[in-house]
Structure formats: structure tokens, C-alpha cells
């Protein structure tokens, strides 16, 4: 919303400067976005007087002038046809920046004669397009500031323009008068009395109006009248200047008047060329499929249930949004039908959105204009048409009536103080509301018709608070809910997530945050991409589906980094993945990805390609940080995006899978354009059981003074026998005495033959109570061998 200072002063009697007004507006909630002060670029221009002007010795069109300036009499060369002795002019001295020609004036020589400045035209100062000659002023003293002269003699030319952002709750501030009312209530001046107009109709209106029964809910009130014998020429200069100042193009007096009412009083109007209207006007709902060519030269196709205004011939207007081109006014218009109507804001909002039609009228109607101002607005506009275009007004035609929006809410002055936390006296609160147009009846505040946003007591609080100035609000400490040391607030899940994040970073992974939506192809590769997780209005096809898994995002990130020349990549992300499109169909995941080598090549030869056992170690560390039990089981046959033989699922049983780790399927890497191989792990933190015991105390430490004994065994087994089962078998030989079984060597093929391998284990035996005798150890060894050979079908390696 833009307006000028002088426009505001039409409604507000104030001495406040543009700066003071801007500051107050921002504080009141009408946030100032920009104040444009045209005098800012004119500061250095000063008045001068041409004492003498002679022809330039070497140029017929140039004159050598002697000009009295603020800095004494100067010689200035001038090419303007009106440069002559005896006129008061505007001088740009050397050093002055001239905006219209984007030049800073310097002392120069023009055809051999020195020139100490320039006499300016209006265009050179960007005051108008006038460039027929230099400015001649009818008054003014030598040395006087031109900006000051303009402010005194032609204020409309240096009118500061203020642009404010209007929040959706303040339709009343979409008219200059509403802004003036806020400022007056703040004490920045006095609101001038509202204008009224009494128009006696000279003849019955030849165009009748009606509202269809099914449209009354959407179009409660329609008023209009004919004005005949008008002259629709250009509007007067002051009106054109105002419209231009706020960025509107003057078109003709009639159109300019409707625009003026839109911005002055937030009262959108429409004018039909009555000569082009056939019969009466009827407000009705559309069936859908009708078309209209609108004033913006676009053709719109109505949907069903929108509002339209038709004459006997066709639909002539998109009611409340925009008029139709065929009945629009032109310079030839002599008879005009003026419309002032009240439309339901929801209907206008829906139609405008569906038609993708943005207009100043829609913007106002959908936020809510003053329903009580339909008829007064019609009369005021009629008066202005009569004043500017002449003619004769008919009687008013009217259909429906202004809806009754009368309502009142209780002003609880104590509650206001309690909510805002500021001492605002009760009488000040009442005065504030009255200044804004509320009427107080006891402690009930009747809401003015132009404030559709006020719908309850809380809105009264807001009005009082913003007028009292929130800038002045002082802080007040808020005590803790409980005195003393604050209790921990993170849930176990949040705490674990943080621990896992820190662990992942400590393991050398870089955390990324990637978009929650990915392209359909990638989503499909990872079990998603269905209709349930599709976005209706994605920002691009690269972001069309909610991610079913974190891995595609990490793989895309790896591909981007590889293209930038990074090859050794370790990334991780913690975030939600989505199994469906209903709220809650998401769960947290932690995924990490490794490609390239374990580190840069070095003199120690420690750099090597990453492999499955890297992520195997990291998944254990991360599960530990997340509080997972140490005893887990490893299963195969995970999701198809893993290398079929090189991945494992870590679970507490086949139905309780906590994590998957392994090599990413080469076909997936191809599809995602990642140079492989790539290792990855995914953990589902919510699957990890919460601790049963909340006590901080540890179980007692049981130490044995007896020395542990270690025995090594090597077994030859089938290549597909898993270490996990061999270790479990060995452990089963004596659960009390065998403390630990570790695999320390694997040897495949060779002399063992195709498809065979040797696994070597260390069994650590911890005697309890008394030292074991050699025979007992021997018996235990035999039991280990028996268990392992039985479970794996292998043999002790000779």
C-alpha cells in the first residue's frame, strides 16, 4: 500500500514529518517498507537569477549567461531556447549530481568558453518529462534551496511517498483514511471529518439491478446509478499526480476516480459504459465454462459457483474482481453506470485464486471492506464524477442490503494489563478504542463496521496494545517453573540421537542435511515413489516425492562431491523418512555412506579402499552410542538396494531389525551416478529398546583373582559357514567358564581346497572358584571341538 504525505493530510490534520509518521506506522503494525522523498536528490540545487545573456561567439544556439548564484555571479553556458536575462532559474553548481542525466556537474569549456555550472530543466531533476527549456520560476531569492521553494510553492511535486506492508487482518488500512485513523488514535494529529455527499437523482435509473436468490449469500448488496452527459477526458493534474506517485497510470477521469476511491477510502468501484449495456444488470452464480474478456485484455473462463454480472446480452463483469472489456468506459463514453457493491470475501478469495486473477479490487474485497459504506461510497463517487466530468445523476438502484455485522465484545482492562504485561490505565484503554471508532457501552465495545478482523476480546487487547506501543514494552523476568537446578528436558530418544550424531562425527563422517523430497526415480529405487508420498505441487521434478530412505539423498550428495573431485567421502544424515502420506507415517533414521579410500595415501601405507568391515565397525560404535544391547544377531536378505552377498542386518531376532550395513548394490550406484564401490549403514533408532533400569548405579564388578587361560583352535569348514555360528557353538561348550571367543584368522581356499576355509578362534577361559587342572582344560577343549564340529560340520585343522 502506497500513499503520499499530502494525500494523508487530506484525512489527517498533522504537523508530523514523513519520518515521524513512518516511525509511528511501523510501531503500530503498519510496517513501513520504504519512504521516498523526492527532495532528497534536489538538496544541492539552488535558485539563481540570469543577469545577462549573450550569444556564444562560436555557436548560434548557445548563450553565455551571467548568473547570480549562491556562490556569487558565475558565467554559465546554456543551450535552452528560453535562457535570457531577467529570469529566476535553478542552478546546479560544480559538484552537484544531476539525476536526470546521471552526471556530476564540473567546470568546463564549451566551444572555448568557460562554464561554471548548469541551469536545469524539470526532466534533468526528474520532476517531470518537461525538457523544452530551463525552469523559470515566478518567485524566489538567489541562493535559496530549490527543494524548499518547491515544498512551499508546489508541494505535490515533492510529496514524500510512503509504502507500507499491510497484514491480512487490516483491510481498513488499505485506504488512506484508515491509516490516518490509526495515526490519529496514536496522537499524531486529528482525523478530519469524513466527507459526505447528498445526491438528488434527477431521473429514474434506466438500468435496473437484481441479485439471483442463490447468489444473495455471496453478493449481499449491490447499488448503482447512471450519470448521463459526462465528458471522460483526462483527470485533473492533482489526481494524476497522486496516482502516478503510487505507481498507477492515469487513464481517464472516470477510471482514475474509481482508482482514487480504491486507495483513498478502500472502496473499489466499477464503471460500465451505459451505452454498451443491454437491458438490466443481474448478479448471479456461474455454471462454469462461461468466458469473458476482461479489462486486462485476458479472457477468463469461469468455474462453477463464481459471481458474475450479466446484462441481457452476456456476462459483462467478473464481480468483485474485474470488469469486462466490452462494457468498459472510453473517451467517447457519455453515459456511465457506477457500481458500488459488497461481495462475500470468501467467495471473492476462492474465485480469484481459481481464476489466477489479481487486482486491487480482489485484494480488498477478499480481505473485507466496510459493508456499511456501499451506499455512502456510491454517493461520494457520484459527486466526484459530477465535479470532474459534469453530467446529471439518476436515482439510485439497489438490490439486497448491507449485511448486519454489528457486534460487541467485553473490554476486560485487567486482562489487557495481564496479557501485555504493561500498565495501561483503564480510561486510556477506552479512549484508544474510541479513537479507533469503537463505541463503548459500559465495558462492551461495539466494533466499527470497517474492522471485520475484530472477532473477539483478544482483538481488543491487540488494538490497545499496539496503540500503547510495544516498542515501549519493558521486559519482565519469567521464573523457572520449579526453583533450583533445572531438571533434564531431553527425552531418551533425543539424548540418544545427539549421542549418535556426535559418535558419527567422531568416527570421521560429515553430517549433511538434505531435502526431504527426492525425484520419483530415486524414490522408486528405494521402495518409495508411490502416490501416497507424492507432492501435488512440487517445486521441481527433482523434488517430487517424500524420501523413503536417507540413502538416495546421501548417494546424490556423494555424486555431486565426486563431480567436484572429492573421492574419499564419508557422509551421514539423521532425519525422518516417510512410508506414507499420512501424519505420523515417518520414522527417524541414521544413515552413513563411505566411498573411496580410508584416507589419503600416506608413507605408512595405511590408506586402503573402504570395505564392508569399515561400516561393520562403525555400525557397532553407533549402536553402542544409541544404547543398543551388545548381544545382537546378524541376518542376511535385506532390502534389494544392498549387494546380495555383502550386507547384514543386525537384529534382536528376525522381527526386530535395528540396522543394516554393507555394500550398496552396484546397479543402484550406476543409477545414482556414484563411482563405487560404496559402503553404507542405516540404523532405525526407534527399534532400539529403551533401558529397563533407570537407576544410575552399575551392577557390582565381579573380579576373579584366578588367571584366565587362552586356547587357540583352527577349524576347516565350508566357505559359507558364518563366523557367528562357529563362535556361538564354541561359546556353548561351557557358558560359565568360557568368557569370550574371538575369531582371529580366516583363510580361504588354497591347500584347503575349493569352497573350504579355515577359521581360527581364541577361547578365553576364566576359572571361577579354583584354578583349573590341565585335565579339566583338556576336557573343555574337547567339548569346544565337539560343539563346533557338530554345529558347522567342520573339522579341527591338523
Amino acid at each position: 500500500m502506497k500513499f503520499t504525505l499530502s494525500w494523508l493530510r487530506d484525512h489527517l490534520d498533522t504537523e508530523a514529518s514523513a519520518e515521524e509518521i513512518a516511525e509511528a506506522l511501523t510501531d503500530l503494525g503498519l510496517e513501513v517498507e520504504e519512504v521516498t522523498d523526492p527532495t532528497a536528490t534536489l538538496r544541492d540545487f539552488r535558485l539563481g537569477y540570469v543577469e545577462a545573456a549573450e550569444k556564444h561567439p562560436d555557436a548560434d544556439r548557445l548563450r553565455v549567461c551571467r548568473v547570480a548564484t549562491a556562490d556569487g555571479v558565475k558565467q554559465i553556458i546554456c543551450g535552452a531556447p528560453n535562457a535570457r536575462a531577467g529570469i529566476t532559474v535553478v542552478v546546479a553548481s560544480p559538484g552537484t549530481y544531476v539525476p536526470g542525466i546521471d552526471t556530476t556537474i564540473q567546470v568546463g569549456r564549451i566551444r572555448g568558453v568557460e562554464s561554471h555550472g548548469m541551469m536545469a530543466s524539470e526532466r534533468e531533476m526528474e520532476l517531470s518529462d518537461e525538457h523544452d527549456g530551463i525552469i523559470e520560476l515566478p518567485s524566489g531569492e538567489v541562493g535559496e534551496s530549490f527543494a524548499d521553494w518547491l515544498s512551499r510553492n508546489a508541494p505535490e511535486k515533492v510529496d514524500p511517498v510512503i509504502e507500507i506492508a499491510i497484514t491480512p487482518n487490516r483491510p481498513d488500512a488499505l485506504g488512506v483514511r484508515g491509516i490516518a485513523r490509526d495515526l490519529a488514535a496514536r496522537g499524531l494529529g486529528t482525523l478530519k471529518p469524513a466527507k459526505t455527499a447528498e445526491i438528488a437523482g434527477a431521473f429514474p435509473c434506466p438500468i435496473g439491478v437484481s441479485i439471483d436468490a442463490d447468489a444473495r449469500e455471496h453478493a449481499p448488496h449491490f447499488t448503482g446509478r447512471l450519470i448521463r452527459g459526462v465528458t471522460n477526458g483526462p483527470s485533473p493534474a492533482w489526481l494524476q499526480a497522486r496516482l502516478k506517485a503510487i505507481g498507477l497510470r492515469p487513464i481517464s477521469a472516470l477510471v482514475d476516480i474509481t482508482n482514487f476511491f480504491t486507495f483513498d477510502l478502500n472502496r473499489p468501484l466499477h464503471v460500465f459504459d451505459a451505452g454498451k449495456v443491454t437491458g438490466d444488470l443481474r448478479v448471479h452464480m456461474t455454471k462454469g465454462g462461461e468466458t469473458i474478456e476482461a479489462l486486462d485484455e485476458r479472457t477468463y473462463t469461469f468455474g462453477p459457483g463464481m459471481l458474475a454480472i450479466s446484462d441481457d446480452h452476456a456476462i459483462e463483469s467478473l464481480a468483485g474482481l474485474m470488469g469486462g472489456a466490452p462494457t468498459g468506459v472510453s473517451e467517447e463514453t457519455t453515459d456511465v453506470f457506477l457500481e458500488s457493491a459488497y461481495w462475500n470475501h470468501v467467495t471473492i478469495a476462492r474465485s480469484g485464486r481459481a481464476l489466477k486473477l489479481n487486482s486491487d479490487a480482489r485484494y480488498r474485497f477478499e480481505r473485507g471492506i466496510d459493508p456499511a459504506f456501499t451506499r455512502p461510497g456510491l454517493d461520494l463517487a457520484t459527486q466526484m464524477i459530477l465535479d470532474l466530468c459534469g453530467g446529471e445523476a439518476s436515482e439510485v438502484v439497489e438490490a439486497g442490503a448491507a449485511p448486519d455485522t454489528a457486534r460487541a465484545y467485553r473490554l476486560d482492562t485487567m486482562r489487557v494489563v495481564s496479557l501485555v504485561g504493561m500498565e495501561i490505565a483503564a480510561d486510556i484503554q477506552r479512549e484508544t478504542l474510541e479513537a479507533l471508532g469503537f463505541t463503548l457501552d459500559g465495558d462492551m465495545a461495539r466494533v466499527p463496521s470497517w474492522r471485520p478482523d475484530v472477532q473477539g476480546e483478544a482483538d481488543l487487547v491487540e488494538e490497545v496494545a499496539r496503540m500503547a506501543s510495544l516498542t515501549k514494552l519493558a521486559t519482565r523476568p519469567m521464573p523457572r517453573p520449579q526453583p533450583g537446578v533445572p531438571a533434564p528436558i531431553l527425552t531418551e530418544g533425543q539424548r540418544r540421537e545427539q549421542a549418535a550424531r556426535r559418535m558419527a562425527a567422531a568416527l570421521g563422517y560429515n553430517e549433511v542435511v538434505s531435502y526431504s523430497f527426492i525425484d520419483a526415480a530415486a524414490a522408486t529405487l528405494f521402495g518409495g515413489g508411490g502416490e501416497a508420498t507424492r507432492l501435488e505441487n512440487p517445486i521441481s521434478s527433482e523434488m517430487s516425492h517424500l524420501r523413503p530412505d536417507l540413502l538416495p539423498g546421501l548417494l546424490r550428495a556423494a555424486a555431486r562431491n565426486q563431480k567436484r573431485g572429492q573421492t574419499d567421502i564419508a557422509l551421514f544424515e539423521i532425519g525422518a523418512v516417510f512410508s506414507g502420506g499420512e501424519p505420523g507415517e515417518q520414522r527417524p533414521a541414521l544413515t552413513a555412506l563411505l566411498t573411496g579410500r580410508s584416507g589419503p595415501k600416506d608413507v605408512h601405507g595405511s590408506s586402503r579402499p573402504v570395505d564392508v568391515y569399515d561400516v561393520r565397525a562403525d555400525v557397532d560404535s553407533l549402536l553402542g552410542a544409541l544404547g543398543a544391547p551388545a548381544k545382537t544377531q546378524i541376518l542376511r536378505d535385506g532390502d534389494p538396494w544392498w549387494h546380495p552377498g555383502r550386507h547384514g542386518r543386525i537384529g534382536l531376532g528376525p522381527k526386530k531389525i535395528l540396522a543394516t550395513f554393507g555394500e550398496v548394490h552396484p546397479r543402484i550406484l550406476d543409477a545414482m551416478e556414484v563411482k563405487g564401490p560404496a559402503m553404507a549403514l542405516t540404523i532405525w533408532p526407534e527399534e532400539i529398546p529403551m533401558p529397563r533400569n533407570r537407576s544410575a548405579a552399575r551392577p557390582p564388578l565381579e573380579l576373579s583373582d584366578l588367571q584366565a587361560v587362552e586356547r587357540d583352535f583352527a577349524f576347516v569348514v565350508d566357505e559359507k559357514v558364518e563366523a557367528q555360528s562357529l563362535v556361538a557353538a564354541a561359546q556353548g561348550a561351557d557358558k560359565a567358564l568360557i568368557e569370550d571367543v574371538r575369531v582371529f584368522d580366516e583363510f580361504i581356499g588354497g591347500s584347503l581346497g575349493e569352497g573350504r576355509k579355515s577359521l581360527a578362534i581364541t577361547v578365553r577361559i576364566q576359572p571361577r572358584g579354583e584354578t583349573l587342572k590341565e585335565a579339566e582344560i583338556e576336557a573343555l577343549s574337547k567339548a569346544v571341538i565337539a560343539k563346533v564340529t557338530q554345529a558347522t560340520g567342520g573339522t579341527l585343522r591338523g
Partner: protein
Amino acid sequence: MEDLRSKYLTRIGEAADEAALEEVRLSAIGKKGEVALAMRELGRMSPEERQVEGPRLNELKSEITSALAARKAALHDAALDARLAGEWLDVTLPGRRSGRGPADGSVHPVSQVWEEVTAIFADMGFAVAEGPQVESDWYNFDALNIPDHHPARGEMDTFYMARAEGDDRPPHVLRTHTSPVQIRSMQEMGAPLRIICPGRVYRADYDQTHTPMFHQVEGLAIDRDISMANLKWVLEEFFTAYFGRSVKTRFRASHFPFTEPSAEVDIQCSFEGGTVKVGEGDGWLEVLGSGMVHPHVLRSGGVDPDEWQGFAFGMGIDRIAMLKYGIPDLRAFFDSDLRWLRHYGFGGLQVPTLRGGV
């Protein structure tokens, strides 16, 4: 006697290695060594002579023994020195790495700031609540006093989920703010309540300063007498702790459907030299929206507005991360560029705490 001493001390001094030294030891104090033989002679001496010669011989023996030990140590030292002289390593070579380590990894600034923010608000009694990112139309809009036709809906650039044919419910949305968590938390926990709700939010917008996904933290405090003046205090305390210096705020009246009265909040800063410095100068930078919770919102959460009141605020986590850590471009947050992650990220062990400073 003097001959023996000088002879052996000289030989000890001249012994070139441990073998030579052993030879000297044997010939001097070995069982058949000269000193041992001389000691045997003592038996044949008169008691008076023995009184004199005995101690002298003992003294000589111990003198030779210590000279032998000293020489042995000296030889040992010399041998070690000689070995060490040959043992030289280029210690400027890099160390051996067993793989990746803490120096390689990093925590994303959004996560770091998440922890900073929760640490500060925890101290003021706020718990951390989270909620679904796909939300129903009701939780995201209606419950927050944004009815279907409200212009704010259009202004939010909402992402909608596709609706299956025949499903007539309004489409779900990707939450446009973390405010729905307010409603869910009130429904679950009632009043009094103090929570912050950090999380991902979505708006269909992409340009230099907007990304279709970003992070917000919502704050909500409900009690019997909480006021806007408390809100201002809480925010000033927060910003002062977060930026590590005193930060003033300025409240400006504004409008949000879910709060009434509403205020936009600016923090004090200077803009000199093209960089924003928070907590100094006399400029103001808008950082968040806030206000007193609208009665409609309280009712949506099952809280009686006649009995309870409170404030709510929402601010961008990414934005305050940019302000604090001088990160210029929001879009880079989600680009996963390793160079960026390493430069702007935080070490795994750099856990923010109030006692150590966030």
C-alpha cells in the same frame, strides 16, 4: 700394592669393550686373580701385618670393583649413544592413521545450533517437543486460526500432498511452520506447559534467500499469568546467551492469525562494512514473529483460554545460525558440499553446554 692398583685401574680404563673388561675383572679379582692371591697371602702374615694389609687389600678390591662397574656403565652408554646416533627418523612425516577419526568428521551447523538452542531454553524450563512433518490441514491451519479462505494460506506457499481419487478430505500439507506441534503438545500435556519445537518446515519457494525446506524453532509457554513482557525477557535472555553478548530486542506490533497481540521482533545490530554484527550499533534486524497465544489456538489444544494464557514465538534455526557463524548463503546448507561441511561444521566432541558457553 700401589703397583697392583695402578696396573688394574689403567687396564680397566683402557678396556675397549665388555669382553676386555671381563678379562681384567678375572685377572684382578677373579678366584685366581692377583688380588685374590694376595688375600690368600694374608694367612701367612703376622697378626700385626694382617691388621695393616687386610684392610688395604679390601679397599683395593672394592676400588677395583667400582672402577669395573663405572667402566661397564660408561661402555654401555657409549654403545647406546653409538646406536642412537644411527637411529634418526623424519619426524615431520605425518602420523599413522588407523582410518578416519574425529578430525575428519563434522556436525552440521543446524544440528549444532539445535543443541545450543535447546541447552539455553532447557535452563529456562522448556522441554523439546517434536511432531510429524506431513500434517493435516487442520493442525497446520484451522487449529491455528487460519481458516480455509484466509489470505495467510495463499501467502505461505504451501506444499500439498497428492490425494487419491475418491478421498475427499482436504489434502495433507508439508507443515509450513512448527506451530502444529504446539497444538499436539497442548492436547497431549495440557497446561501449564513450556516447550520448544524445533524441526524441518516446508514452503514452495526457491531463490537467493529461500529454500523449499528450512528449520524453525517454535516456543510456547502457557501458565496463568504469563505476559508479553515475559516473552520479551525470555527472548532477550535467549539472544544474549546465544550470541554471547548483551542483545536488545525491539517489539513491533504485527499480525499473525495464531497470536493476539502479535509482534515482530527485531534484534539490535550494526551493518557496518556489509556484515551484520548482532548486539551492537543502533540498527535493527527482524528475526522472529511472536505474540500471546490466540484463544482459538488454546481451545484447539484443549486448553481453556479463560484460565490459561501464554506466549508463542517462531524463528528460523538456519537464519540464526547464519547470523551467529557468518554463513552467507542459506542454499548451501542443503547442498552437502564437503568443503562447506568441513568449513562451517563442528567437531564431534564440541558439545555446546551452558557452563562452557554455547
